[in-house]
């Protein structure tokens, strides 16, 4: 007998639900579209919040969608400060304390200079990984693949616990 889809155990390496977002001061769109397609190419589901979105709206959207991963992308050179504030607000919510969250792009105006400092502060503030554009996409794809593989499968029967996470 076939199980109803919603009761079937989720494939531990199956698709992740990912929220992709820009930051409040950044109007760039194509980097967000690119990240969405990249994640879709890897087989994951994406909700794209778009550019110029306020911190509160990002936090509320994460509470609403309960994604498996939050991807923040910013390329206007002002992303560092906005991203640091955002992740502190995120970690202040108990529902989102454990949400895997990463940030990448061009985060500062000084290019490579200052990158290590940015990375340390963003990790200390609560991000799980920080990707600078010079690294290419390899490290990001590796992070996503590892996350998709490591997920613990939910209990094989009964109401799905994942939904109430």
């Amino acid at each position: 007998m076939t199980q109803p889809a919603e009761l079937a155990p989720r494939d531990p390496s199956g698709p992740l639900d990912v929220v992709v977002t820009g930051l409040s001061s950044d109007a760039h769109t194509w980097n967000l579209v690119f990240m969405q397609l990249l994640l879709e190419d890897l087989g994951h589901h994406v909700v794209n919040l778009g550019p110029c979105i306020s911190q509160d709206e990002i936090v509320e959207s994460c509470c609403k969608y309960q994604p498996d991963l939050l991807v923040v992308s910013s390329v206007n050179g002002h992303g560092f400060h906005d991203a640091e504030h955002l992740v502190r607000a995120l970690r202040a919510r108990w529902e989102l304390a454990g949400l895997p969250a990463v940030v990448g792009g061009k985060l500062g105006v000084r290019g490579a200079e200052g990158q290590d400092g940015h990375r340390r502060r963003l990790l200390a503030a609560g991000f799980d990984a920080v990707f600078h554009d010079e690294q290419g996409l390899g490290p990001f794809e590796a992070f996503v693949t590892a996350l998709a593989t490591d997920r613990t499968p939910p209990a094989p029967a009964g109401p799905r616990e994942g939904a109430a996470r």
Partner: protein
Amino acid sequence: MTSFGRFVAAARARGALVVQPRMGFSGPARMRAGLLATKHAADAVAGTLTIDSYTRVGDEPAVVRALNADVPLNGYPITSYSPHTSHWVLDGIPGPAFPVQVRHGSARPQRIVAALARLGLTATEGGPVSYCLPYGRTPLVDSVRNWQEACEQLAALRAEGAEPHLESFGGCMLGQLCPPGLLVAISALEGVFFHRAGLRSVSLSYTQQTSPEQDRQAVRALRRLAAELLPDTDWHVVVYTYMGVYPRSPHGARALLERSAELAVRAGADRLIVKTSAEAHRIPTVAENVAALRVAARAAARAAATAPGSPADALDTADNPVYAEARALVDAVLDLDADPGSALLKAFERGYLDVPFCLHPDNAGRTRSHIDGAGRLTWSDIGALPIGRVAGQRGARLTAAGLHDALTYVQRRYDRTPGPRSAPGPQRAAAVERTHDLLEA
């Protein structure tokens, strides 16, 4: 009072393409110097006052903070300077031979329109859809109401003897990867919106895309639609030089600019907004703007001299695929409501208008596009667009790497033009490594 539309018509009558920069500086002296320098750059030039992005979103406190701290803005903060300062900037500059247009990008334009009218200016740019969807998250319903008010403010200047002019930015929509049929439809629909709000001098826009043949079809389609939809109105078509990821080489940037001038002349547009060779790297200087205006004007004059007969006046061909698509969209949208503003809102709600890759919450986001083997921009998914019977062959969905290739298609083609050893392909891996760099456009 100067009339933007009359100036463009006079240039057309003597066979000149009007060229115009995108230029704005926060320093009053620099802004004045820029206007003066562009005024005499070519035979027919329109002046531009581009507004900064803080003013665009209505954040005037941020403008004041920046000005007090001597931080340069990316445009002229028209609502923050005193009218005295702005009158000094413009003193003796605008006139019948050099109208000045205000370009801004605001979905809340009322204060900007009030400020430009106070300075005696009568020409600006915008639109309820085109100044809203690509720029952030102002709800479309608010933008429609704001632009209704702004159009009425402008139209009221007619009572004072002026002929206010409004240009739709609808021919741009994210700059690249929006198929021409939809660009033409949005620009034409905004023209109808302006007309209904009382304006009688408008321009409709189209941005150079990936295929010269398709671009000519689009400009001709726009002219045909304007003639059909805008009775008793002075109208013209304005072409924007490519707005996507720009060539990095000087020869590539120049060639792309020259092709856009030829497009304007051959397809019957009357005005061209130029780009400079510095575009891929930074905000251009006054000198770079002047150089671009000269290059464009010369290319236009050459094209006009070599054009057989007068193709600009040639009627559009019956089988123009861009016209067929645009006309189907316009008809379906205008059928939704007698009021053009309400029709636009319903159209986006139902996905009758749906800009590919646009992430605005009021855009359905079900359409996708790609560049086909012939270089034409076409649909890979039409979503709910009412063009099922007229849209051509659909292509495959873009992957991330495919998106990157599509976004840099024009840049790569133009950067490699003169090199005999052009070897496309192998650079791709390296190019993807620098994705963020390229996606900043």
